[in-house]
Each structure stands twice: as C-alpha cells, then as structure tokens.
C-alpha cells in the first residue's frame, strides 16, 4: 500500500464533501461527525473501511454500513497489536466486538480514535469540551500544511534579525555589482586606448579605476564575510533556543514516543538546514535576481543577437541537471545509507561498550566495521563514475555556444558592426550571467527543502504539552491528602498500564505499594507527580485537580526518588541541592547522613565536590540511589514518593536506610514502592497492584489473613529465606 506521507488516516471534523458517500444519508438530525478514520485493510486484503465517530454513534462503513453502535453502549475501546497489523476492539453492552483491522501505518490514526472514544465513554468528558479542543487542533494542523504560510512564519520568527539580513543582502549585491565594472573598463581600454592608440592619458585613469574597484571590492568582501558570520550565528541561535526551550517544555510522553533521539537529531538537522538556507540561499535569491537583471540588460545593450545565442545552452543545462538529479538521488542515497551504517556501528560500539566487551564481541564489530567501510568506498566510486558521465555532456553545450558567440561576434567585429572591446566585454559578461541563473534555480529548490525542514520544526514547536497546566492554575500549599479517581493510562495507546485505579491517601498516611513487576506501580507515581497526563481520570491534592495546581508548586512540595535514579553530570553536592538550591553545606551533609550517603561520600577524595560523571555513571547503583534520596530528603517535602529506594542496597545498608526512613516519614504523606516487603514494616497501609489495578489494600496482618496476592508474595519471600537457612542448617549437620 502506498499513500503519501501527509495522509495520516484520520480526519477530524471533516467537511461534508470529505465524508464517505454512504454516510451522508445515515446521519441523523443533530448528529455531528467527530472523526473519520480509514483502515488500509479489509480482512487480509488491502482495501479501505471507514470508521466514523459521531457525537452519538460509532459506525463502520465498507461501501455500505457494516456495523454501528451507540456510544452509550460502549464501555471501552482498545487496540491489540500484532507484527504488522492491529485490531481495534470495543467492549460493549452486548459483549466484546472486534471492529476493524489495519496495518501499523494507521496505528496513530486509530490510537487517536480510541482515545477520543474513551474520553467520551470512559472519561465522560463533556462532548462540547472535547469539540473545542479538537477544533483548535484541526486549525493548527491546517496552518502547518500550507507551505507559503510556513515560510511566512519562518520569516516572522526571524523578524528580529531582519535588519541584519537586509544589510547582508545589500552588501552582497553591491559587492557583485562592483565585480561587473572591470570588464567594462577593459572594453574602454581596448576600444578607446589600445585600438585607437589615442587618449593615452586614459590608460592611467583606467588602471587607477581598476585599483579602486579592487580596493572597494576587498572592503565589501570583508564586510560581507563579517555580516554573514553574524547572521549565521544569529539565525541558528534563535532557532535552537526556540526549539530547545520547547523540548524542555514537552511532556515525558513525547520523549517516549520519539524514542532514541530521533526527535532530537531530526530537529537539530532541520535547524542546520534552515540555518544553511537562511545564510546561504535566502540572500542569494535576491543577489542572483539582481545580477541576472543587471547583466542581462548589459548583454542586450552590447548585442541583442549574441545574447540570444548565449542563452541557448541554458535550457539544455536545465534538462541535463533534471536528469542528473533524478539519477543522482539513487547514487547519493546509497552513499548516505552506507555512511549511516558506519555511524551506527561506531555509536553502538561506543554506547554499548560494556555489552560488546562483556560478550567478547569486539572482533565481530571490527569485521562489520571494515566491511561497511569497503561498501562505502565502492558506493563512493560509483558516484564518482556517474558524475564523470553526465557533466561533460552539459559542458559541451556551453562550449558550443561559446564558440558560436566568438564566431558570430568575430564576424561582426570584422565587418565593423561591433567593436573588439564590446565583444570581449560581452564574453566576460556572458560567463558571469550563467552563474546566477543556475544558482537561482538551485535557490528555488533549497527554498522548497527549507520549507519542509521549517514545517518539521514547527511541528515540534506546535506540539502541545500533553500535561497541560490550566491557565488559571495556582499555587497550593499541600496538606498531604492525595486522591486518584478512575485513572486509566497507556504509554503506547495499545496496552493500558493503569486500568481504573482508585486510591485515597490521608494526610500523613504512609502507604506501601507492592505488586508484581510491570503491574503499574511506577506508572502510578509518575502520574501523581503529573509527569504524564492520564487518558482518563483525575488526581486531586486536598480535593484540587492536579491540573489546577501550578507544576512548580507541585514539584516543590512533592519529592520523588525514581527507581533507577539518574544524576546530573555535576558534583554530588549539586545533585543533592537539586532538592533545594539555597541549602547550606550543613544541610547538604545532614541530608546525606539521613540517606546514609555521607560516609561513602567522605571516602571520596573530593568528597561532596566530586563529579559524578554523565548520568552519575561514576557511582554505583546503590550510591546513586542514596544521593537521589538525599536530594528528596533535603527538599523536606509534604509528600514523599520513593520508588524502591533500597533496591540497590545491601541488606545492612537497607536496614539502616529503612530505620532512617521510618523516623523521617513520621507524619508525612509517604508512598514507598518495594519488592522486599520487609522494608514496609512501618507503613500504615499496604496497597497491592496487579496488572494495572489495585487488587487489595489493608494492614500487613489483615492482608495475610485474606490470603490473596499479598500473601503469595509474602510467602514466596519467606520461602526463599527459610530454604536458605534450612540449607545452612543441613550443611552444619553434614560437617
């Protein structure tokens, strides 16, 4: 299945002309089409079905109506994903129903659709509110699609540097116009001095003029270089700053989606491309247009006839370069593929050095590397050979027309119809004329490319942070009460990590959160900190919706220590001071002591001034965890969230940290996630999660008595311990 890139498979609020024909008759009075998603499969054949969401129903059309269900009967929509295909399914009052199958190319479209449906049926978001949000999105997208609008917007973005841009253009044009003077002086020299042997005094004048032209030219050249460099930096910095501050603003969910740096490298590439365009091609458009006008006029005044001959090879060259471009794309693409293969091998070998070395794979890598180098070399040779074939042909056309000009012009000079000086000037100008013509053609192409790049940058700039702080969000002094209501959350749109979590935590209550790996514990606490926006449901602090609370206010009062804490590439002291920037050195030490980090820190020669390396790589996992814990403790937060704070610690240190935590969390709302249940001995209540749901909660003894999942987890841990001690005992007997 082809399909152009712009086709994203879903249309929000389509105009009536865009509706699939049979739908128009099916709509009832007052029914609005919210979205039409198109599948690319019908069964196991390529084909197309329309899945239509209205404010009342969901319909599936394939030529005619195939299935319909009122929204009121849907309990939830979901996606199941396979290797190439995905299926959209519904839970309805009449039972589960698989609605439509499509390839992964349409996954995004149907993710959108599913989230719309769930917002309405699970989230019970009022339709009017949803509509307002969607219409806003539709408008922004439409604006992004028009390339003229994109260029205007790009120029708008660069408005502050417009004077600089204008100055650069003026100087560059002036420089090139000055360059036009010498051939004219030569004409005078030949016609009025050399051939007539009169006006000898003019010789000196002309020589001096040439010198002056040269001086002016050099001065302009220097100025031009200075201005271009300045422009270069200004453009790049403006764009980079914009993009970077946007990236910081984005939600984590965007980062998850654009995995492995593709977003970042793409944006950086695009910024470079635009920088290149703005400083290289944009002003050249003006310069080239000016040059074509000036030189063209000069040529015509010198000799209109010869001008016509001189223009002849231009269409041939244009044709030639069109052919060249089409063929070159193949060769160059291959070259680029080979190159990126080399880059990826190198970056693998470096980034995954531990892995490569621990599996002893260095020879394999070396071999792969030299193989790809050879391939690259071959591709490069092919490019070279290809270039050798096409350009001589085009060159021939120019040589032919050049000879023709000399011949025809020579005849005219001999017949006295044209002066020798004019002919010489003409040929000089003729060569000067070709350059801006081709350069202008190039400029138009790079204008198009820049528009594409700009479009992608705007796509990033237009990303709305999903975690949206309402405009009237406010500072809130937290009391410590937290409540989750019906939280549904998915990272990828397919698999739900949380499925309707309800949890109430009283102010000052200490909660232990346990459950099998992947049950959604970390996800739940990330949502509490509003790092992600749940698809459905609400989180409230002291009864206030988290979306109504300023993010800065929330982050000041809620501290979280993540499961695998990452540190910043700076000193230990500064990492701890992330908790509170104005902390005194005594407080830093005190927090480190509480987190049982002080003694290992003091063993380092540079102690708290030690740099931890990128992501904290110079510390061990357990040391990192304790530094992160110290930062959280330094914050003295109203609410403390610890995601397996002791997982990386040895049993002794764990015991110490647990004791310290017991003391420090008294009277503070605390959520501790732990696999080792012994660390939870001081919590007021244990909450057990399984597969995205809370399955049990209560005090330790109560849960044991109930005999559910908690008891199983508890017994499994006990069994491990008793086995060990049993083994120790029997070994003792054997001796």
């Amino acid at each position, binding site marked *: 299945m082809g399909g152009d890139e712009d086709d994203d498979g879903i249309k929000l609020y389509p105009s009536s002309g865009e509706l699939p024909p049979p739908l128009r008759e099916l709509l009832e009075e007052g029914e609005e089409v919210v979205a039409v998603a198109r599948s690319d499969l019908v069964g196991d054949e390529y084909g197309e079905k329309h899945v239509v969401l209205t404010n009342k129903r969901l319909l599936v059309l394939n030529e005619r109506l195939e299935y319909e269900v009122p929204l009121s009967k849907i309990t939830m929509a979901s996606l199941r994903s396979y290797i190439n295909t995905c299926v959209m399914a519904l839970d309805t009052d009449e039972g589960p129903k698989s609605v439509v199958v499509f390839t992964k190319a349409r996954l995004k479209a149907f993710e959108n659709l599913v989230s719309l449906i769930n917002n309405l049926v699970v989230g019970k978001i009022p339709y009017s509110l949803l509509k307002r949000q969607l219409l806003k999105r539709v408008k922004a997208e439409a604006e992004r699609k028009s390339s003229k609008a994109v260029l205007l917007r790009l120029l708008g973005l660069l408005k502050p540097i417009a004077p600089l841009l204008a100055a650069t253009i003026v100087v560059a044009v002036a420089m090139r116009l000055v360059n036009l003077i010498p051939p004219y002086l030569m004409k005078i020299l030949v016609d009025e001095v050399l051939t007539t042997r009169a006006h000898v005094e003019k010789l000196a004048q002309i020589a001096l003029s040439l010198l002056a032209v040269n001086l002016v030219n050099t001065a302009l050249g220097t100025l031009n270089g200075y201005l271009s460099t300045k422009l270069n930096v200004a453009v790049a910095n403006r764009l980079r700053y914009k993009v970077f501050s946007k990236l910081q603003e984005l939600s984590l969910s965007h980062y998850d989606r654009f995995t492995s740096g593709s977003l970042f490298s793409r944006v950086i590439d695009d910024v470079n491309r635009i920088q290149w365009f703005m400083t290289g091609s944009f002003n050249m458009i003006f310069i080239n247009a000016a040059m074509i006008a000036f030189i063209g006029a000069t040529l015509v005044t010198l000799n209109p006839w010869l001008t016509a001959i001189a223009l002849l090879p231009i269409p041939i060259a244009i044709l030639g370069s069109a052919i060249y471009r089409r063929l070159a794309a193949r060769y160059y693409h291959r070259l680029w593929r080979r190159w990126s293969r080399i880059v990826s091998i190198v970056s693998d070998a470096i980034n995954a050095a531990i892995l490569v070395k621990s599996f002893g794979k260095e020879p394999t890598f070396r071999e792969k590397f030299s193989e790809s180098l050879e391939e690259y070399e071959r591709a490069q040779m092919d490019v070279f050979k290809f270039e050798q074939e096409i350009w001589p042909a085009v060159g021939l056309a120019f040589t032919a027309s050049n000879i023709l000009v000399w011949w025809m012009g020579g005849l005219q000079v001999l017949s006295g119809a044209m002066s020798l000086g004019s002919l010489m000037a003409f040929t000089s100008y003729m060569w000067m004329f070709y350059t801006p013509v081709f350069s202008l053609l190039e400029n138009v192409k790079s204008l198009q490319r820049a528009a594409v790049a700009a479009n992608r940058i705007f796509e990033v700039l237009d990303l709305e942070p999903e975690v949206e702080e309402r405009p009237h969000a406010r500072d809130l002094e937290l009391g410590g009460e937290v409540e989750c209501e019906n939280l549904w959350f998915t990272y990828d749109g397919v698999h739900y990590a949380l499925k309707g979590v309800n949890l109430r935590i009283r102010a000052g209550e200490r909660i232990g959160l346990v459950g099998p790996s992947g049950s959604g514990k970390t996800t739940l606490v990330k949502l509490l900190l509003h790092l992600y926006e749940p698809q459905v449901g609400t989180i409230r602090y002291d009864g206030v919706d988290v979306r109504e609370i300023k993010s800065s206010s929330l982050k000041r009062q809620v501290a979280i220590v993540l499961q695998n804490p990452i540190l910043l590439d700076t*000193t230990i*002291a500064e990492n701890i001071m992330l908790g509170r920037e104005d902390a005194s*050195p*005594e*407080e830093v*030490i*005190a*927090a480190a*002591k*509480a987190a049982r980090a002080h*003694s290992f*820190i*003091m063993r380092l*020669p*540079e*102690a*708290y*001034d030690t*740099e931890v390396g990128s992501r904290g790589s110079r510390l061990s996992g357990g040391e990192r965890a304790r530094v992160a814990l110290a930062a959280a*403790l330094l914050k*003295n937060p109203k609410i403390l969230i610890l995601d397996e704070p002791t997982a990386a610690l040895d049993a002794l240190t764990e015991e110490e940290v647990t004791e310290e935590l017991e003391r*420090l969390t008294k009277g503070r709302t605390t959520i501790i996630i732990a696999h080792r249940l012994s660390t939870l001995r001081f919590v007021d209540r244990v909450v057990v999660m399984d597969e995205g749901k809370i399955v049990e909660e209560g005090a330790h003894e109560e849960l044991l008595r109930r005999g559910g999942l908690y008891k199983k987890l508890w017994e499994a841990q006990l069994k491990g311990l008793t086995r060990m001690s049993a083994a120790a005992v029997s070994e003792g007997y054997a001796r």
Partner: protein
Amino acid sequence: MHADNILRELKMLDPRHVRVLEARLDEVDVEIEGRVYCGVRPRRPFPYSYPEIVIFYRDEEELGMLRDYRKLDPRSRELLERVLRIIYFMPRVKKILGVRSAKGKYEWRVVTDKGPVTFYTWSRCIRLLRDGRLLIRDADGRVYMVEDPEKLDSKSRLYLSMMM
C-alpha cells in the same frame, strides 16, 4: 525532616572548645571539649566550594565538624593548616609554557607555585568550578588549580582555551 532536627546529627563543634595540640604529616592531636584525641585526620567535605569546613575523623568515627576552622585560635589554625596543606596538596598554575599532543595524550609544561612540572592529560581534562577557578586533571589523576584564568598571560590563556 526539619532542618534543626537533622542538623543535630552533625555534631557541630564550637571553635572555642577545640584546640589543635600537634600536627604530624596528615594527622593532628586535638582537644575537643576537654577530651584529647590522638591521630585525628581532618577532612574537607567540600574541598573546593567550602574549604573552610572541616570534619575530624578518628579512623571511621566522626568526632565533629567545624563550620569554619579559621575561627580556631591562631596556633591551632596554623597547625591544622599545616596538615591540610599536605592532605589537600594542590599546585596552582602560574604560567603555561606549552601544550602539545604526544601519543594520544597532551603534554603540559607549566610553572606552578610549587615549581615547574610536566604532566600528561587526556583530552577532557579541565573542570570549571562554580567560582571561575579551573582544575586540570592529569592522566595520573593529579589535579592542578588555575586560580584566576583571566590573570594568566595571554599565551597561557590561549593554551587553556585550546583545551577547553
């Protein structure tokens, strides 16, 4: 965790009740609140950012912390500084004579307040401290300090900027 609550654990010492009696290489004998401890090792928790803070250790045991050791009586301070100068030995770079690449490393010839030295570094070897001072770490892990890069002569500055 209220600040004063945790700060109590720090065992802050009153400089008026601390006397350094003797200094031996990297150890001191100190009298703290009337008790004499021998073989005590002073350590700086923040050797660069707060060099005035000192914690006394006897083996692994923390005896207490001085917020500013300079507030000790002059004799004690003199003795303590003698030990600190050894523990925190750090040449200050006065002039860089040359940096050239040699066998994948960089060879530096510099003049320090302790005399001229030649050392080798890897390419990422300069650390910028918050207050503008620079640390140069050589391939053996030794550190040299540049107190005020702006005050160096222009050639030294050029070498530095080349390596940053």
